[in-house]
Structures are given as C-alpha cells and as structure tokens.
C-alpha cells in the first residue's frame, strides 16, 4: 500500500450471505481526492461501500486503511436517506448530534462543545434553520444536507456517501453536489461517493471507480470518463 493511498482493496469479494456480488476487486482510494464509485443499479456499488465501511464482512481478500495516524481513519457515512425509518421522532439537531456518538462514551451525555459542533456542521451544510424540525418531515434535499452534516459531525478523515443525489430533482442535485465540492475544497476531505449518475460523478469527482458487469475499472475522471473511453467500456461489455 503506497503512502498516498487512504484505502486499498486486494482480491476482495463482496456479497450477502452466500451470494457473491463482486469478486477479485483490487482498487485504491487516494488521500484527499474526491472519488466517484460509479455503476448501474444492481452493479454492487452499495454492497462494496458497506463492505468498505465494515457493515458487511468481506467474503474474501483484504481491506486496508491508512489514516493520518497510520490506522483506520474516522469514517463519515452518509447512508441512503430511505434507509432511515421515519417512525423515529428525531429532530435534525439530534440527528447531527448522533455523529458525535463515537467520541462520547456510554453513559455520558453530550457536552456544550459537542452541541456547538453539531450546530457548526448544520451551518456548514446550509441546514442551520432546520435544526428544530423533525428529520422525517424534510424534503429529500434537506434530508441529504442534514445527513452530510451528521457525517461531518464525526470529524471524519474519509467521507463516504451512498447515492446522495438519488431521487432528487436536478436543481437540488446541483446544490448537493456543490456542497460536496465545497466541503472537499475547503476541508481537503477524502470523499468516496457512490452514484449511478455519470454526470454527477463527472461534475464532482477527480478519480472514478467504475463497476460494470462485475468488472472494476479505475482511473482519473478526465481519463476514464472521456466519451471514447466510456463508449469503449460499454461496447466491450456488449461484446
């Protein structure tokens, strides 16, 4: 694993139960880069992301992180917003405070500094006025901003997002992508964004990992997502 790699996967197989979704995955995510994980629906993007996050165990292979301290970096995770049950009566502020749970031990309560940090994260994502609103009552775009704020509240070294623009209209998609681009530029965050939207990845990401029919291609966006290259990849798949 080279020094500029934050994450490295070697010979990794991912899946649910006994069902293998992807195998022999070799890839790396560079430190401080905005990386898009691109693929069609059902290509295994989310499964791969959940395996990287430790939510699913890898079926084979090795996953290695090298954070600033040499070990695993703090991960900020933005799940798909539909994954969160609307039955919970959670305000946006409480939602963002959850991001601090990794630092506040069991049986201890959030102190003023953590509460201030949560407000700061809401401000960073332009969601400060939503603090008192119930999360389940927000629109898709608002929810996404709050989820990004919660991920920032973990004080992450590596931000991982699962389809942050899925099911959101074009205008709101642009504002979410703008927010992510700004965060990346301002905080030099390493970002891995799962998306099926080629335009969104092209607009934001510097590097891209493309999953297509079980194969993994990786490179810089301006290389891999060139029209000829995309056509070649898709034609290759058709053959």
């Amino acid at each position, binding site marked *: 694993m080279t020094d500029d790699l934050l994450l490295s996967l070697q010979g990794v197989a991912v899946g649910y139960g006994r069902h293998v979704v992807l195998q022999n995955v070799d890839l790396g995510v560079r430190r401080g880069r905005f990386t898009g994980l691109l693929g069609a629906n059902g290509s295994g993007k989310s499964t791969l992301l959940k395996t990287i996050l430790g939510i699913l165990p890898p079926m084979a292979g090795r996953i290695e992180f090298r954070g600033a301290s040499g070990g695993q970096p703090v991960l900020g995770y933005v799940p798909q917003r539909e994954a969160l049950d609307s039955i919970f009566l959670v305000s946006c502020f409480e939602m963002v405070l959850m991001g601090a*749970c990794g630092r506040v031990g069991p049986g201890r309560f959030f102190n003023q500094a953590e509460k201030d940090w949560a407000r700061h994260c809401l401000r960073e994502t332009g969601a400060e006025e939503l603090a008192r609103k119930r999360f389940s009552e927000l629109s898709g775009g608002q929810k996404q901003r709050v989820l990004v704020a919660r991920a920032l509240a973990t004080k992450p070294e590596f931000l991982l997002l699962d389809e942050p623009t899925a099911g959101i209209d074009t205008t709101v998609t642009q504002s979410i992508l703008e927010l992510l681009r700004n965060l990346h530029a301002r905080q030099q965050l390493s970002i891995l964004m799962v998306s099926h939207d080629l335009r969104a990845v092209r607009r934001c990401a510097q590097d891209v990992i493309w999953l297509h029919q079980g194969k993994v291609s990786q490179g810089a966006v301006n290389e891999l997502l060139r029209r000829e290259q995309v056509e070649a990849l898709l034609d290759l798949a058709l053959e």
Partner: protein
Amino acid sequence: MSVLREIFDPQFLSRNSVYISLLIGFVCPLVGVYLVVRRVVFLGVALPQVSSCGIAFAFAMQGWGWIPHAHDSAGERAIALGGSIVFTLAAILLLSIMERSGRGLIEGRTGTAYVLAGAWGILLLAQNPLGEHGLLDLLRGQIIAVSDTDLVLTAITFGFVVLALFLFQKEFLFVSFDREMAITLKKRVIVWDTLLFTLIGLTISVSVLSVGPLVAFGFLLLPPLIAYQFAQTMRQFAITASVIGGVTAVAGFVIAYRRDLPVGPTDVALLGILYAFSFGGRKLFRSRTLAATGAKPQASPTNPG
C-alpha cells in the same frame, strides 16, 4: 377522591397491589417505546406468553421432582421468576439468532413463538401434579396478594431498568435508529442490542409474574401507541407513554375497586378506550390540518408512511 385516599392509605389491605400496578404502569411503556420504534410490536405479545410458559415450566419442574418443592409463597415466586426470566431471555436470544441468520419472516418466527408458548403453557399446567391451584391466579395476574418482598424486588428490578434506559438512551436510540452508522463509529451494536433486549426481557418477566401476560402486553404497547399520536420528540414520547401508563394503572385500580372488577383487564380496557379516543381525535385534527395546509401525512406505528 375518597377512593384514591383509601387505596393510597398505608392501612389499605391491597396497598402493595396498587404500588406494583403503578410501577408496571410507569415502567412497561418505557421499554415498550423501543418495541414500537423498532417495529417489533408483536414481540411484545409473544414474550409475555413465553414468560408465562416459563412460569408454568418452573412449577412443572417442582411437580416432576426436578427441583425442591417451595413451601411458602416467596419460594414459589422465586421459582416462577426464575422460569420466567430464563424462558424470556432464551426466547430473545433464539429469535435474535434466527433474525441474524435471515431466514423466514420475523412475524412468522414471533407468531410461532407466541402460539407454541401458549400451547405449552396450557399443557404444562394441565399435567402438573400439583394442580392448577394458585398457578392460574399467577398467570391471570390477579394482582391481589403482593408481599412486601415482591414489591421491593420489583421496585429494585425496575429501578435498574429505568436507570439503564436513562444512562444509555443515546446508545439505544443510535443502534435502533441507524445500526449501520453505529457500526461505522465502532459501536458494539450486538452488545447494545443484547443489553436493550435483556432489559425488555427483565421488565416483561417481572411484570408477567405480577399482572400476567395480557396486562403486561397492554402496558408495554398501548401507552406508547397513545403517546405517539402527540409526541414531538423521542424524550416526550417515552415520558408521555410512561405517564399515561402510570395514570391509567391508578385509574384502572380505582374503577376495579369501586365496581368489583379484576384490576388487570380493567387497566387494559381503559387503555383501549384511551387509544381509541386519541387515535380518533388525532385523525380528526390531522385531517383538518392537512386540509388547511395541503401537506402530506407523516409516518406512524399504524401508518408506515
């Protein structure tokens, strides 16, 4: 008011029954809130039934001579409590292992646990050589004869449960609401789930022993379902549910005492009436509000959203 003064009088013969009803009324809804938000309401029906089966099994063990025969009511209750706790926690463990294996539907597994526990409870009672004397009262939850020791033990157990729920509310909410993110933050979700369900199991075991499965189920679920209609935050939800449970326990006792009715079923019937009124009132209020604002309806335990 005179009835209230009478039942809270230190000389009142059934004062311990009042106190134990009050404890169950306040504490069961606090754990019931988690059954509602985790959408495992049916577990609240099945576990009290399993707990009853455990009590029947513990008494059957005495009849078969597997364990020494208890000679006083304290000994009987200790044996019953042991059976109740072991069966409830074993059922929780078994159901969670089956859930992790991902086979079948959770409703199917819980429903199976419910009917099997019910059937085995009846079979164990029927063939118990010690007869059904006293045991049926215990399972029906007559809440009549509660000793000082029972009351103190229940209070200590519930005190522990409430303290744990208060101290670890952040962890319980987090692993219930967003298990995946909790994993990414290195929270031991299995440990927290186990602790939460142990607290639920303990509460159910102690409650079933005092008031029976029907009433335990009623207090576990109806106050949270009523409170959900009005609460805005999780804290409000838990506190409102607990207050509704506690107030209903006292009101039910008063009504049962005045009308010479069994206390437990009176409590549940009262909760049912409250639920119907709150649900109807909420629906009416919301339909008027929605008509005025044109907004979409929100999720609820009866409307997944």
